[in-house]
């Protein structure tokens, strides 16, 4: 594919466009021009949200499983996550263009999972008279993690969706957040915060000061079982810090928007703390990882009434696996192990 190689080398706008067209034409046949518009609602004035399906990332839902959104200032727009395929990103872009004539100046990636970022390419070029591309922003640890996983995401996209991405169709950040960053959209400031390893090692939350709206991304799962791909102890610590924020409206990474802050985090807290206790107990009792995966159920009596989590078959055993691999390195004394480090 000489065209693809050229795009790889030059990374120019035209080539990005070519890569994008190549990607979408595989995904949607010849109908790239009639891309659908993502359904969005206003969670707060100027804060638009698209709610993804409460399902695993896959062809059945077109990869549209993560919540995405955008915030409109007086000067420009910030997009928060872009969805699980280029087509999902394109639909979100269409929703932005329907909501406002202002250009997209920032695309924020909350973490390096495919269901949240593979739509980036739809925002790589701005149309109209001022076609400067937006800044792509993510945690400072995002790029390394995405680079390590990119081949596997491409493989999964090909295998499960039949989508072959061009070499330049996975967009990396142009601006990295070490700890915190304020961005101004014109009379509207968003505060971006990078977190110590929690859901992943590169979580980034977005807070709109004007409406006290928090895009918690995958630091918060509602209804969809939380998925651990970072550090269980880190996540529990991050939740304790998150709870102290003044939040009127929260947009989780998966699940419905809520005004019930911080109570909306309780179910996730119960699950993660239960997972922590049960996995530690399994390790102290010298269960092997395979035994722990088989025996640690969703809702032991010690954990109170079970929440009606979705996708437990898909993710609970995986969470036990990750929790065990993390916690088996703790010192053996329970006293030491029970105090997670504060971020």
């Amino acid at each position, binding site marked *: 594919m000489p065209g693809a190689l050229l795009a790889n080398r030059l990374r120019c706008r035209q080539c990005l466009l070519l890569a994008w067209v190549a990607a979408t034409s595989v995904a949607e046949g010849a109908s790239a021009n009639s891309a659908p518009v993502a359904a969005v609602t206003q969670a707060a004035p100027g804060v638009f949200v698209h709610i993804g399906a409460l399902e695993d990332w896959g062809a059945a839902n077109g990869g549209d499983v993560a919540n995405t959104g955008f915030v409109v200032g007086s000067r420009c727009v910030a997009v928060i996550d872009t969805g699980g395929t280029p087509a999902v990103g394109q639909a979100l872009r269409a929703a932005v263009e329907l909501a406002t004539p202002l250009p997209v100046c920032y695309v924020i990636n909350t973490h390096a999972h495919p269901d949240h970022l593979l739509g980036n390419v739809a925002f790589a070029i701005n149309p109209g008279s001022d076609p400067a591309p937006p800044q792509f922003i993510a945690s400072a*640890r995002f790029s390394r*993690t995405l680079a390590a996983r990119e081949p596997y995401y491409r*493989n999964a996209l090909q295998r499960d969706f039949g989508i072959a991405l061009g070499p330049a169709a996975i967009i990396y950040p142009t601006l990295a957040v070490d700890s915190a960053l304020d961005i101004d959209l014109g009379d509207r400031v968003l505060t971006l915060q990078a977190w110590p390893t929690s859901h992943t090692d590169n979580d980034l939350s977005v807070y709109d000061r004007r409406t006290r709206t928090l895009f918690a991304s995958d630091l918060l799962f509602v209804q969809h079982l939380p998925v651990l791909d970072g550090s269980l102890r880190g996540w529990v610590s991050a939740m304790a810090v998150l709870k102290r924020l003044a939040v009127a409206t929260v947009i989780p990474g998966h699940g419905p928007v809520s005004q019930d802050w911080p109570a909306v985090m309780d179910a996730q807290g119960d699950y993660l703390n239960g997972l922590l206790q049960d996995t530690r107990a399994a390790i102290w009792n010298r269960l092997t990882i395979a035994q722990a995966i088989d025996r640690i159920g969703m809702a032991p009596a010690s954990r109170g009434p079970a929440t009606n989590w979705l996708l437990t078959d898909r993710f609970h055993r*995986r969470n036990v696996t990750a929790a065990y691999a993390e916690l088996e390195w703790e010192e053996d004394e329970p006293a030491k192990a029970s105090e997670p480090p504060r971020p």
Partner: protein
Amino acid sequence: MNTSTPLAVGRRSGLRRSAAGCAAVCAVLLFALGSAARAEIQTGDNPEASPIWQKVRASLFQSRPIAIATDEVVSLDVPVRAEDAAIVPISIKTRLPQTAPRHIDKLYVVIDNNPSPISAIFQFTPLSGRADIETRVRIDEYTHVRVIAETSDGQLHMATRFVKAAGGCSAPPGKDAQAALATLGRMKFRIEDEAPGATAGQPAGGQPVLAQLMISHPNNSGLAMDQVSRLFTPPHFVRQVRVTYGGQLVMSADIDFSISENPNFRFYFLPRGDAELKAEVVDSNDLRFESSLKYRRPE
């Protein structure tokens, strides 16, 4: 095992050739799956037909016959689905007595559709007591997982299982690259038999004793591409583990990045009086780590 083919099958030479060489090889294996192969790969029918297995087989065993293993010789326990692509527990159990005249000499672990299919070669001796091994591997793709037991008189027995890939955001690299590097080389080494969950009571004299070795190491595949230089980072993984008891070999493992981050091995040894159980680990950067413990045989 000095064969070298373009397919990372003669992996000792292949992996060490150069990072770029590995990258090319891995990329071919990862992405060479056409749509026909994709359909076939999800079913797991006909394990013998796997083209990668055919190459691995020719490289490791030439035309020697390989029997289908019965549980009386060797069995392989892996989950049907790789829940977390980065950490898939596997357990290999053997039933042949490890006697000097005839015992299990080697266990080969082959994961057909991994970037480097020959994932581990374990060696045992009569002093192992029992040629069992438990560890954790990376599995991103629908694949056959195989264990081939080679007895000291040269017979081969193979057990095969099919594992479904994890989906979505699950991927073989580790969870926290920075944290993994910070603790590189740390080890936890212990005897398992005091454990309430393991074999009940103290082991009787002359019985094999279960030990667990944990090695903190990122065990990187080196598949990640630097976004500025467009070069692949070099792989960095544990390549050999040797465990001796009283100076004599009880288990060795030649491994690579198919083994999960923080390699973990559970294996047996046969205690003889009071002696030191010692683990020596070498990684692909020739870093060496050691851990040992005294084991007093119960009266």
